């Protein structure tokens, strides 16, 4: 197992040094999201499965917000029976759905329909997501360098005056001492090479 991980490691390292890092990461995330967007899963392909997925999509007309799969009301049980009957008669999912829509109206389906005004229900979220991502990227760009620097009291010697601050450094280091720290601000410990950081 560790050997496999090690080899995969090497492969990824090679890959990451060839392809631009940014692209790789972006591609990975994008692919992830894309695959996750696959359409509603089918549990199995049998009649049982189709019945279940239809049941989960049809609302019980008198129960508040429950599908006929969820609800234990008599009418829900009857409707499940009807679905089962029609499935064994060989009707398609769409036909069965239309049957109920004819009887109870489009609100009997759990999903908003894709025609007419209701198409908005489906279109708006992805549009908003895209807009938000763009806004986020722009915000990242815009936030850099946009701050109100509250100037700390400068004795007029200019912002970078290490001599004057040196005496403070010692005291701060002393205060930090209890934690596991390295000795100085500029010292470089050779012991922490890049290889060791691999878990």
């Amino acid at each position, binding site marked *: 197992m560790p050997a496999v991980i090690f080899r995969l490691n090497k492969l990824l390292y090679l890959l990451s040094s060839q392809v631009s890092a940014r692209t790789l990461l972006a591609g990975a995330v994008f692919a992830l999201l894309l695959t996750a967007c696959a359409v509603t899963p089918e549990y199995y392909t049998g009649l049982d499965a189709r019945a279940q997925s239809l049941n989960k999509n049809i609302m019980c007309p008198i129960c508040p917000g429950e599908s006929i799969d969820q609800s234990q009301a008599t009418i829900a049980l009857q409707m499940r029976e009807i679905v089962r009957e029609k499935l064994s008669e060989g009707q398609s999912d769409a036909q069965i759905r239309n049957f109920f829509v004819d009887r109870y109206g489009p609100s009997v389906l759990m999903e908003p329909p894709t025609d007419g005004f209701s198409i908005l229900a489906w279109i708006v979220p992805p549009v908003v997501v895209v807009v938000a991502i763009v806004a986020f990227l722009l915000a990242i760009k815009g936030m850099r360098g946009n701050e109100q620097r509250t100037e*700390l*009291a400068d*004795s007029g010697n200019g912002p*970078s005056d290490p001599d*004057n*601050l040196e005496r*403070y*450094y010692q*005291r*701060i280091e002393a*205060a*930090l001492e209890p*934690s*596991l*720290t*390295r000795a100085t*601000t*500029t010292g*470089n410990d050779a012991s*922490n090479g*890049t290889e*060791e*950081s*691999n878990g």
Partner: protein
Amino acid sequence: MFIIIALLIALIPAIAVLYPFIKGNAANEWLDDESSPMADLERRWDSAISGIKSAELENSIGNLEEDDYTWLRQEYMREAALVMRSMELEEEQEAELLAAIEVEIRDVRERISGADPQQDDPPDSQDPASSA
């Protein structure tokens, strides 16, 4: 009957609400100011210190590269040092201000006790300048 019960119950908040007026010791209501320069400096000190600690931790774990770590640590140390220096300046200024005020109070007292030995001076209350 209802009136009596209601009055009895109403006594609870009534006493509470009138207490500061009766006792009259609410003078230290705003003794500190969370926006005072000192308080602000304390907060910035805290974030500088925790910045140093995070940087150290992240570097020792390996999430932060050596160069970035060095740069960051310098930045935080500089921030902490500037905070310390500002605080010392702040305290100097405060001490000067207090000394100046005391001088003034003494002056006024002398003047008044020259004119009327009975009168008393109300103490000056510190009102830290609120930022714009």
